[in-house]
């Protein structure tokens, strides 16, 4: 986290005196962090770290290229999508962050890919063409945060009722003070 640089949303939000979690990459993580800048050279990728994971921030328009490369390149081979989620930083920087947790069984590497999208009409490309397992994650995130995943074959409501109004995952959605649907 601390090595991620000044463009990281949480860093802007925090008061200076808030303690930061210490970064301690395992040996595999250090090897991966050394490998990534070269492998993803022409994609405008920033490589950092959070506690024990390598974090790589990608511009939304290069996301699919980067994900495909991460999956297909034999030295990386991230064939397993562990988690896909959205974090709401609208109050701080007016952006949503989409976070992908990847794992490579072959190389025993783990990493986090992040991309940002603006508050108005939030949209990122769908990674269902790379990992099919992203399907329901993206539908769920579309329900809860209203982020559109371009190229997803079916973004119909998954966890919410069909006629639900609003995006309950967002920070702006109240926890208790809402009308029953």
């Amino acid at each position: 986290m601390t090595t991620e640089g000044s463009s990281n949303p949480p860093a802007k939000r925090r008061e200076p005196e808030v303690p930061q979690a210490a970064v301690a990459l395992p040996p595999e993580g250090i090897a991966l962090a050394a490998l990534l800048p070269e492998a993803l050279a022409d994609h405008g990728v920033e490589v950092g770290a959070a506690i024990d994971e390598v974090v790589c921030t990608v511009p939304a328009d290069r996301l699919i290229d980067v994900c495909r490369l991460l999956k297909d390149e034999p030295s990386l081979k991230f064939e397993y999508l562990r988690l896909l989620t959205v974090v709401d930083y609208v109050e701080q920087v007016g952006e949503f962050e989409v976070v992908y947790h990847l794992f490579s069984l072959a190389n025993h590497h783990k990493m986090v890919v992040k991309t940002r999208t603006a508050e108005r009409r939030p949209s990122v490309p769908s990674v269902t063409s790379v990992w099919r397992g992203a399907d329901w994650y993206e539908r769920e995130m579309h329900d809860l945060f209203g982020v559109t995943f371009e190229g997803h074959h079916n973004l119909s409501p998954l966890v919410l009722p069909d006629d639900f109004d609003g995006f309950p995952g967002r920070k702006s959605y109240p926890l208790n003070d809402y009308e029953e649907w």
Partner: protein
Amino acid sequence: MTDPVATQIEDKFTYQASSEPGTVDMMVNMGPQHPATHGVFRMELRVDGEQIQDVVPHIGYLHRGSEKLCEHELYSQIITLFDRFDYVSNFNNELVIVSAVEKLMGVEPPPRAELIRIIMCEFNRIASHLLFYGTFAIDMGAITPVLYNFRDREKIQSLFESVSGARMMHNYFRVGGVKEDVKDDFTSRALALCDELERGVDETDKLLTENEIFVERTTGIGVISGEDALDWGLSGPVLRASGVPYDVRVDEPYSRYSELDFGIPVGSAGDCWDRFYLRILEARESLSIIRQAMALLEPGDTMAQIRRIARPPAGEVYAHCENPRGDLGVYIVSDGGERPYRLKVRPPSFCNLQALKDLTVGHYIADAVVILGTLDIVLGEVDR
């Protein structure tokens, strides 16, 4: 918004109303209150005769917005919410959240607390698998095994009750340790229970595994290759049955699993029989883990010296553990406060259920029940 597949099915119905000759597919609705869906889960099956052409799963009937709720609670209060995700393996769920906060704070729980956690989690894995054998047999019309399995599961629940005070929803693990030490008679009780469970698992094995009807119903049904399973993000017994040896306890050892010697059963065919038998083998491995952990158990503290109200540093963390259903993870973004800024769970049942369509298409309706049974979903965790 309309579901395109559902619209497609409606179109089929209007077609049926016309007088043109020929066969048409039929839509069969299963759930949300069907005994074989193991909770409030609904699937629309498009069938040609009895053969399934398409499946549209509908989840969300149990969506409580738990992740949002977690973002408004103290870290110690979140543990109770995690109990309610996968409500048949509560200890495993608690372990994930406490280990995530510990990782964020850099806290090491005392060795005794770690071993107590492992013992509880492995007992819970057996309890969860016992429930699976029984309900899975019922799904196929075999009523007998569930009676034996529930008898054994109840013994585990009694042990849990003596340790945590509750049969389910224990709220026993804490950030930095466990609530209190186990009772004096715990060791003798747990070891005796291990022997009883061993007999119980053997009984189930004898009753089902090589039963001819059982084998006929499960072999070659719902096959998924290892490559597809990885692509869908499957985990746990469903992934390992397809020949992928991925187990968090071995691949990224947490707690004190690296000190213990145990095997990871791996299947080869990736069909329903493999997924069932793998769980029998896993329960035996769990018993071996419990016995080893009991041998390592030494007197000592059960709680690390930390603030009563955990206040982790700012940062983000992903921690995960091997749940009976698969790789359960939690992603926490902390802004340095007493409550997480963002909390997201990686629910293994949710990922496993996604592959349902791939598994069921081409099989008969009765097989869909069997396939859903082997995925062993818990809807509390799918919907959260």
